[in-house]
């Protein structure tokens, strides 16, 4: 028994002690810098405090990048896609959801550049994601960088807030009135109100107002919002989301403190 086991164990030991002759690259490449029209967009993407960046229909936007790897860079992929939260998915009559992808071939250990993204005229206004991934020659993939982008369009709905006035601070169990004017050059379709914790999680208030029956270009929003007595104190986001008949989406988000 022992006679058989020893040679195999010895073999295993000798082999495992001299196995790492070739250096293995297991280090992920790094996305160092991303700018959208000159503004730093990268460093907000990994905190929960997502800043959003604006791009406009019928305008070219510039995406600047700087990337590095310990050995050899291979490819950078950029990808913009709609983040309409499933409310509108797909093509409407006059406007398309905007999507754009680009693969940039790379080499060396450090590289930077700027890509021009032409945004056409007939695209839907609303929230989008810019997603960036980087590969090195050995196949290591970077952490993905996801940036919230808002696409604006001249014919999207607008909202002006009347009450409450900023800074918005309320206590648990209280009730307040959200009011303001919604306007659009086309027919409005729906207004949604959401109140949710700033760092993600389930909303504590949600309401959908269908405007399909009323063919109107303007709507006076008046809504009583009750804050549950058992809500957790902290930073919240009060969101007003407006959609028009074309599919354009306008999101207004207001910081709110509940104590």
């Amino acid at each position, binding site marked *: 028994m022992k006679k058989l086991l020893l040679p195999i164990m010895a073999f295993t030991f000798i082999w495992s002690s001299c196995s*790492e002759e070739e250096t293995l690259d297991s280090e992920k490449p790094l996305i160092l810098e991303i700018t959208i029209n000159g503004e730093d967009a990268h460093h907000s993407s990994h905190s929960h405090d997502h800043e959003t960046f604006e791009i406009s229909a019928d305008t070219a936007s510039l995406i600047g990048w700087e990337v590095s790897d310990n050995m050899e860079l291979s490819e950078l*992929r950029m990808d913009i896609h709609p983040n309409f939260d499933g409310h509108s998915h797909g093509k409407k009559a006059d406007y398309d959801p905007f999507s754009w992808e*680009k*693969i940039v071939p790379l080499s060396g250990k450090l590289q930077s550049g700027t890509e021009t993204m032409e945004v056409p005229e007939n695209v839907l206004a609303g929230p989008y994601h810019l997603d960036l991934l980087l590969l090195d020659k050995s196949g290591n*993939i970077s952490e*993905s*960088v996801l940036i919230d982008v808002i696409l604006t369009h001249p014919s999207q709905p607008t909202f002006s807030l009347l009450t409450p006035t900023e800074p918005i601070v309320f206590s648990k169990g209280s009730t307040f009135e959200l009011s303001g004017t919604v306007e659009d050059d086309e027919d409005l379709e729906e207004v949604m109100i959401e109140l949710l914790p700033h760092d993600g999680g389930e909303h504590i208030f949600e309401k959908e107002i269908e405007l399909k029956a009323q063919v109107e270009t303007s709507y006076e929003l008046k809504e009583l919002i009750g804050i549950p007595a058992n809500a957790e104190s902290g930073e919240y986001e009060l969101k007003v989301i407006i959609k028009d008949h074309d599919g354009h989406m306008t999101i207004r988000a207001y910081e709110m403190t509940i104590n």
Partner: protein
Amino acid sequence: MLRGLLIAILIARMFEASGQISLSGRVINEEGEPLMAAGVYLHETMQGSYTDESGLFSIPNIKAGNYHLHVQLTGYHAYSADLSLRADTQINIVLHEGIHLLHEVTVEAGMTKDQPSENPLQVSIMGEEQIFRNPANNLSEGLKRLPGISALQTGMGISRPVIRGMSGNRVLVAENGIKQEGQQWGADHGLEIDPFQLEQIELIKGPASLAYGSDATAGVVHIRPASSGKVGEHELKWRSAYQSVNHAWKNALRAKGNTGKWVYRFNLSHQRYGDYEVPAESFIYNGYLLPLYEGRLQNTAGEIKAAHAMFGINRNWGYSHLTASVYDQNEGLFSGSTGIARAYQLRFDGDERNIALPRQEVRHWKIINNSNIKIGNHWLESDLAWQYNRRQEFSIPHAHGRPVSFADTTALHLGLHSFSANARYYFKKDQKQFRMLGWQGGRQINEQSGFEFLIPAYRNWQQALFYIGRDAFGPWTLTYGLRLDYQAWDIYRSRYDFFYRYEYMGEVERNPNFNRRFFNYSASAGLVRHLSKHEEVRLNLARTFRSPNISELASNGVHHGTFRYEMGNADIKAETGLQSDLGYHREGRRSHGSVQTFFNHFGNYIYLQPSGRFASIDFEGERFPYPEPGQVFEYRQAPVFHWGGEAEWHFRWNSWLNWHSNAEYSWIQQSNNGAVLPFIPPASIKNHLEANFYLRALDSSKVRLEIGYLYYAARKRMAINEPEVPAAHLLEASLEISHEFRFGNISCGLSGNNLLNSLYYNNMSRYRWINLPEAGRNLQFFLLYHPSWKPHNQKANPVN
């Protein structure tokens, strides 16, 4: 083949010996007391009997020839003997008390039909009661208790077995000798076998490629043919279980009987399960905190329906059994796992049992004929089968860049017809010598459609010839064999409709027409040294080879289930290996244990390597990025070392208390640069304390109580891009009470996994890649009803 069978039957008739003989005898224990109800049967013809109150049995109407006699009784070591019967024979058999008090111990293992102790590779047998005591949603998960076995999982219902860190085509799954032919190359392709249907599973760790098929380089999971049951008895079995973690309901009904000449068996089962709970409210993905609404993984619900029927004849010239089965599974895939997880896709859709898109639907039809026919003194075993596997993946087409008007949600449709035939001729069989000559043939036709492309349509031919011999010299048993394989692949060109940003662009070719032929050999030599009656050392050396599978040769597309763009290589070489296994096993009066180690080297090991390229389609000289999946994974080849081992130990404290422990470790890395391969299971130690007693307060009901502690070590050195996994400590327990009523036996129990509701990760789960934890606390309530209307004091029944 059918004609061949008829000829074989005719030959069998010609060689018929003139007179019929009988075998009778007595079964006693070490103290010389008669043992009642011991099962005594001849392996080859399934003719058999049970001993009466005086320990006597008699099997009449046997044709002269060589037989393998099996004797089994719960609580005793099984007994087997090779008999050469020429005239009426009487034998006395002494059974030794074993420590496996609860179940019968296996008498035969593998194609050589010897006791596991004669086999140069480690063979474990699990009975259905061992698999079903614990909450498991599928067969592979039920096997995880054994050392060296783990499961590659996608959610709760989809799972495939992993032996020593290897899976896919390297683990051969067979039912009644026929290799299960689904799309087994896919990591997210579960096993299309109804767990409620099986009675016994045989697990072989190590290269068992000679008799089963050249793919079996890591091991074999064999669903053994169900026992024919006692002659003259008809039984019914009802099983129900409710599982808390995914609100699963499982129901199964079985009927079987044996008239002495005719045998039948029917099985029906149904499982319906909802989205499963995880002990977390959110998970972090891509730097975003995404919510898990209601603590559930949205769209992981599923349903499994299965039916199975067997009908056969057992005579003194042999037997022939026909089995037909259908398995149907429909399971949702967590929306966040196919592409970038978006919060709205994770929202609770109001119905936890709803199976929405994306989802997969798998159907498997199978017809098997197993026969064993006496030819003179020898036996010819044959297995014939037809299988049809239909795998469909459904998804939202516009998530793949198709226009909204594109209504067909069938992303992938694969239909695989397989015809298989095995013949094994057993000759020159006595106590010292065993010889087997075998042939395996197979034909496969695969069709594909759907708006996504992954693997092409193809035809495949397989032929193999093998020879296995076994000789015993004193305390040594030598097993050796050689197998020659020929595989032919005819792969058809695939065209694909290419859409970009919801616009139709044109047709692109995803793979050309091509043919591949593989001709190769496998060989093995194994030595068992019996140190004493219950102690042995075994060594097995093998040269193995595995022909590449279809995805390794020709895949070129997004593997929907794993959401990876996978690319095959038409020039890939066959995988060859040198494999060594060393084991020690000892069985004492109060304890038994074993240690196995393995050390393998594969020359052209095929693995999926993440490449430095993003998925794209080249169309008219331009490069179009593929909608969502990132990296291209390429099938590459490299020399690898594969080593590790398992140890297990069972200890019987006293008449009612048992302790089991087992440990496992395995590792696969490239021998040229030390790169680790993905999906290596973590090292683990599993411990169970088990108590069995009769409770007077409950009218002498039988009670079984078990507590288990499982430890999975952390894994830090990972394959490229594979996330690390921290260590996990899990607690489990089960309680089972069974009682014999006048109208039958009822068992009911409660068992629980992950009792502490620990948050842990499993690198064998594909959901690990998106940072999702494993299922939380899972309690299962189960009920088994075994009605009986058999007359009491049943006498040993004559056969025929």
